[in-house]
């Protein structure tokens, strides 16, 4: 395989101007809290901020209290969790494959989840969102394991093969999904709403359902992130510097599977977060993965929460699903970023 990703043949030529810092982290955390607050305050019904805060800590069974606890709290928490998970998964994915175009969806995760959900709707008559979540967790996990098995050599996962295997498995699963959906309008009707990705209408139970997987994924991500700096030099150099590339890659890919799988299970496939956020994080944090990964986590959370809020506001009284908003805002921003800056190359 000699048609390589641009990044492999072109090592970073310029020294990055920016680096991650504690000050930047503090700023991002503040923005995140602000975004979460806005998400709690904004909705179809106008509830004064003071009331929101009041009922948040003292639920009194009033209508405002129900709205805050049953509707806004779950979707804020979910949007935040999904954004963090997808941001981290994307950063790890791009780091491990050393391909700036890699995103978690390429591991077959979204396609596996979608196929499992469609099978759930079509064959098992599943209709509730927490039922979808189990199916999509299982589907995402299985698809990712298959991709991992195909894309690995004895020396561990091979970046280019992994991405190609992911694309192949995705295409195959999509074909299966579509052939069910095309034959059954009722399934299509449920599926077309699930597949755009949305944080609304889910109870907080969905969050508890996916939380263990998210935590496990974050733990693995935290362990494997520092090693990514060495892995950028290539497996041989990393190994000669005392690292175990194979072990690191298995850990990294497992983290991506857990995070992206859990995120898809919670809110459906939300595209673009895992792809864009690492580029933005790299723009602010430079080349050190010990900064890129936490920055990607916070930027991911920020982006998804804001997208969810915007979706509630723009087409009142209706709503735009977060996945759609994500792409409609993220796309143009991403294009401007790519145009304006010399992106830090991987």
């Amino acid at each position, binding site marked *: 395989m*000699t048609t*390589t990703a641009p990044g492999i043949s072109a090592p970073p030529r310029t020294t990055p101007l920016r680096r991650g810092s504690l000050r930047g982290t503090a700023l991002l955390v503040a923005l995140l809290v602000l975004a979460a607050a806005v998400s709690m305050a904004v909705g179809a019904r106008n509830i004064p901020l003071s009331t929101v805060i009041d009922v948040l800590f003292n639920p009194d069974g009033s209508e405002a209290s129900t709205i805050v606890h049953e509707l806004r709290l779950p979707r804020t928490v979910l949007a935040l969790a999904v954004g963090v998970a997808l941001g981290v998964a994307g950063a790890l994915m791009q780091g491990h494959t050393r391909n700036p175009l890699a995103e978690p969806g390429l591991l077959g995760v979204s396609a596996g989840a979608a196929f499992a959900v469609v099978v759930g709707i079509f064959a098992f008559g599943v209709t509730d969102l927490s039922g979808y979540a189990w199916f999509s967790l299982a589907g995402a996990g299985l698809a990712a394991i298959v991709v991992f098995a195909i894309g690995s050599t004895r020396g561990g996962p091979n970046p280019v093969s992994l991405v190609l295997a992911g694309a192949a498995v995705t*295409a195959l699963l999509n074909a299966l999904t579509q052939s069910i959906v095309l034959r059954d309008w009722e399934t*299509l*009707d449920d599926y*077309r709403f699930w597949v755009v990705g949305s944080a609304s209408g889910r109870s907080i139970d969905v969050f508890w359902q996916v939380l263990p997987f998210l935590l496990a994924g974050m733990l693995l991500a935290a362990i494997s992130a520092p090693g990514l700096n060495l892995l950028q030099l290539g497996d041989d150099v990393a190994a000669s510097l005392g690292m175990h590339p194979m072990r690191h890659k298995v850990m990294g890919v497992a983290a991506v599977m857990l995070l992206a799988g859990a995120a898809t299970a919670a809110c459906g496939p939300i595209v673009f977060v895992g792809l864009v956020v690492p580029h933005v994080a790299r723009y602010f944090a430079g080349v050190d993965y010990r900064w890129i990964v936490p920055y990607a986590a916070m930027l991911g959370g920020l982006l998804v929460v804001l997208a969810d809020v915007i979706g509630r506001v723009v087409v009142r009284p209706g709503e735009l699903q977060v996945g759609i908003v994500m792409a409609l805002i*993220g796309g143009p921003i991403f*294009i401007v970023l790519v145009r304006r800056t010399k*992106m830090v190359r991987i």
Partner: protein
Amino acid sequence: MATISTPLRIGVASWLVPMRAAAVTIAGLGVLFFLIALDLALGDFDIPLSDVVATLFGGGDPASEFIVMELRLPQTLVAVLVGVALGLSGALTQTFARNPLASPDILGILEGAAFGAVAVIVLTGSSGYGGGLVTGTLQEIGVPLAAFIGAMATAALLYVLSWRRGIDGQRLVLIGIGLGATLTALTSWLLVRARIQDAASAQVWLNGSLTSRGWEHALPLLGTLAVLVPVSLLLVHALNAMQLGDDSARGLGVKLQVTQLLTLVAAVGLVSVAVSAVGPLEFVAFVVPQVALRLTGGSRPPMLASMVLGACLVVGADLVTRVVLPFALPAGLVTAAIGAPYLIYLLIRTNRKVSA
């Protein structure tokens, strides 16, 4: 990679022949002719191969002449031409961007076509259930033209947005992804808002279909290929030099910007015409050049082999859809179902070799 070219001399003329690529291309042509023959012979009414050949040369009975010449030949021809167009355009973009992920499906062009087509289907209610939201101009345009316009407009936008003192492969791909994601979001928004009948009909188009394609679909493809295939083949030398990096290519006398523009125009033209004829057959442009590369063992996806194998895949898909499957399934799903396992098999085999 082992040496792949053998020098060939006839008198004073001499040139390098990539033997393995030539062998793959010729074998691919053999398979293609076999598949075409089967595609013409088999169907609801089977015609013996000898009668098919006789009919093609003007000597069959009227019944088989009608079936072969009027019903099957245009559709088979469309399948061949679409396969050639998609295979070649994938080889061009993957070579240009030096990235296996840079197939036209990822540059947002198919997404632009899809948005155009779905807008017409959903907004005019042209799925035949009546009661569209918009009639008039939009309905007049029709789905194929809307897809073509969508693809070309997206490509133009892509070029304008990527231009910054020249075109850089990586920037082009990243901006293409941004455009694609935005357009996909708009398409899914249309699908979520549409009536379920229109959504279902859009879904069929979105998966690519070869069913009842006629001469009116084949002719634009034929015209486009007649122009763009020679253009692409003339670009091979410059593209080979560009594999060494932009600076080396300039040093070797390649006119970088002309080559880049021509490559993109060729790739986009091929995809746009193909998608307007049969809808987005998503996997073909991506997988075929990669499979061809692994079979020929060169340093970049080979053009000729990609064209031939692309045609094989799409004709094969047409055959499977019409003859093998008990129920109708869009050809795009079949190309994925055939292409994906084959790519997986090749990956596993290559990986075994690497680790052994």
